[in-house]
């Protein structure tokens, strides 16, 4: 029999890692929903964000400044990537965007390995307080990550719903040509969306850094999970991605009670396959008739 407190601890762990994953996945699904781009380099933007965090933290000594600086730097890089590599692909098969971003992913990943070396770096937590949770001392920082991720996603939602530029973005999603006819600069909306998505990946990279250590390969694991989440939640569906991220993370947290964490991944793979078989449009949207 599994002790009750173990289940509760794993629920909390699941929610915390689920919120981080939701932050990555919502950037991915935003980019897909608005411009039909499957961003294979998203995991590498996440990794690069973490490295930017390492650098700016060393330079400024302040975690929150580092978080903001890293987001800005990666957003700028995202804008450059979109303008140079993805703008020419507009209107072509979405599959070509997977190919192009896969190439970019290889470049970023190897450039990071070349520049930062193979040794993992560390980001220090901004605060180290703990609170007792059954037999554990649970760090407050983990709770803070979950809250902060939720806040960023919430801000994105409000921006899309009420902000003028948010309405531009939604208009572009609905009808590219019509939006253009109404005077919305569609190419720049795409650039901005990619930059926002990249900034969200960078934010999660910095927030996640203290938990795992920063290395050039940290993006690989994340991009796979983010793909799973985005498909399980329904491509381009922001709310669905968040629910799916928490669902997948919980599933892995519970599976980790019995099997090793490396094998727990198989459970989320299975979740993806079952979803695709029975609800191909995603778990959290009504099946279209």
């Amino acid at each position: 029999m599994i002790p009750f407190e173990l289940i509760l601890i794993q629920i909390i762990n699941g929610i915390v890692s689920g919120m981080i994953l939701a932050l990555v996945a919502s950037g991915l699904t935003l980019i897909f929903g608005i411009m039909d781009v499957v961003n294979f380099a998203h995991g590498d933007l996440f990794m690069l964000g973490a490295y930017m965090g390492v650098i700016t933290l060393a330079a400024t000594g302040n975690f929150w400044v580092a978080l903001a600086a890293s987001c800005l730097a990666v957003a700028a890089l995202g804008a450059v990537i979109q303008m140079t590599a993805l703008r020419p692909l507009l209107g072509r098969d979405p599959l070509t965007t997977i190919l192009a971003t896969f190439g970019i992913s290889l470049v970023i990943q190897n450039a990071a390995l070349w520049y930062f070396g193979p040794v993992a770096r560390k980001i220090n937590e901004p605060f180290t307080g703990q609170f007792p949770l059954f037999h554990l001392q649970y760090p407050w920082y983990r709770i803070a990550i979950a809250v902060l991720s939720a806040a960023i996603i919430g801000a994105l939602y409000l921006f899309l719903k009420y902000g003028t530029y948010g309405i531009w973005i939604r208009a572009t999603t609905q009808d590219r040509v019509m939006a253009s006819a109404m005077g919305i600069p569609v190419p720049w909306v795409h650039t901005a969306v990619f930059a926002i998505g990249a900034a969200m990946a960078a934010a999660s990279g910095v927030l996640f850094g203290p938990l795992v250590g920063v290395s050039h390969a940290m993006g690989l694991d994340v991009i796979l999970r983010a793909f799973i989440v985005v498909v399980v939640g329904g491509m381009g569906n922001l709310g669905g991605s968040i629910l799916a991220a928490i669902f997948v993370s919980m599933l892995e947290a519970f599976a980790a009670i019995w099997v090793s964490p490396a094998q727990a991944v198989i459970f989320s793979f299975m979740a993806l396959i079952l979803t695709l078989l029975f609800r191909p449009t995603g778990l959290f949207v009504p099946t279209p008739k």
Partner: protein
Amino acid sequence: MSPRHSSTGYWIGFALIVAALAVAPLVLPEFWRRFVTEILIWGLLAMSSDILIGYTGMVSFGHSAFFGLGMYGAAAALLSVSPPNLWLAILLGLVGAGLVAVFVAFFSTRLRDIYFAITTLVFSQIFYVIIFTWTDVTGGENGLTFRAPTLWIPGVIDAPFTRETLHWFVLAVVTASYLLLRRITQSPFGMVLQSIRENEPRTRAIGYHVEHYKIVAVMLSGLFAGLAGVLYAVQNRFAAPDFVFFLISGEVVIFNVMGGMGTLVGPVVGAGFFFLLREGFSRFWTEYYLIPVGVIFTLMVIFLPQGILGFARRRLNS
């Protein structure tokens, strides 16, 4: 140019290239001999995925699973039977890749476009995790090493592989696979696959059972990828989980895009181009050669989506 004339030209070119590849190990310097053999093996893997990418219009990001299972199937045969038998290795490699292909085909062909790509990617990672963590059987991270089989053709030859005979054996297998795949793509079955690529709803409307065709296409592709895995295992005498990781699948897609999808020869040329770039850039960039290669690949996706042999696509399929 009459069709008959152009097909004569094609066969002359084919014979010349095969002949050049056959004498390659006798004239090339030591380093390049191994290089050519390796390109042929990767070329076969790329060719197998061209059936899906180029002819059926389904981008598979999971070919490493078929390739890897072919390797581990061969490893199982070579480790369990003494003396190691070449044909048993090929048989078990194909069985391994075939079983995985049935599994992947059944689930992933229900999906299209990017969903197919992501599902195949996730499938290959499932097999990667299983192989990586099931240390007792697969050797885990370290993989398996084994002895090479002898080149044994009943009544003809039974001798250990030398570098030359291995090359000729690989060349024979790859050439035979190419001719077989070419025949398949020109058969009514292959025509249906190309019709799925061009317009799936219309193909369905004409009355073809698109799902069945796709399942067979994935299985066919998986079997040839497994064959490439067996050849690689025989050449290198080891099997490692790295070859099941999805970056290998990504490289296979790169070979296809660089060489020219939908030509069968293109992916082989793409593999050769990729490895030449790798050798060239490794001089200055050492193990970071993927930085310039990634840039070139991305530029090719944007500016040269038909690949190096794209201009010859029509002729190569006639």
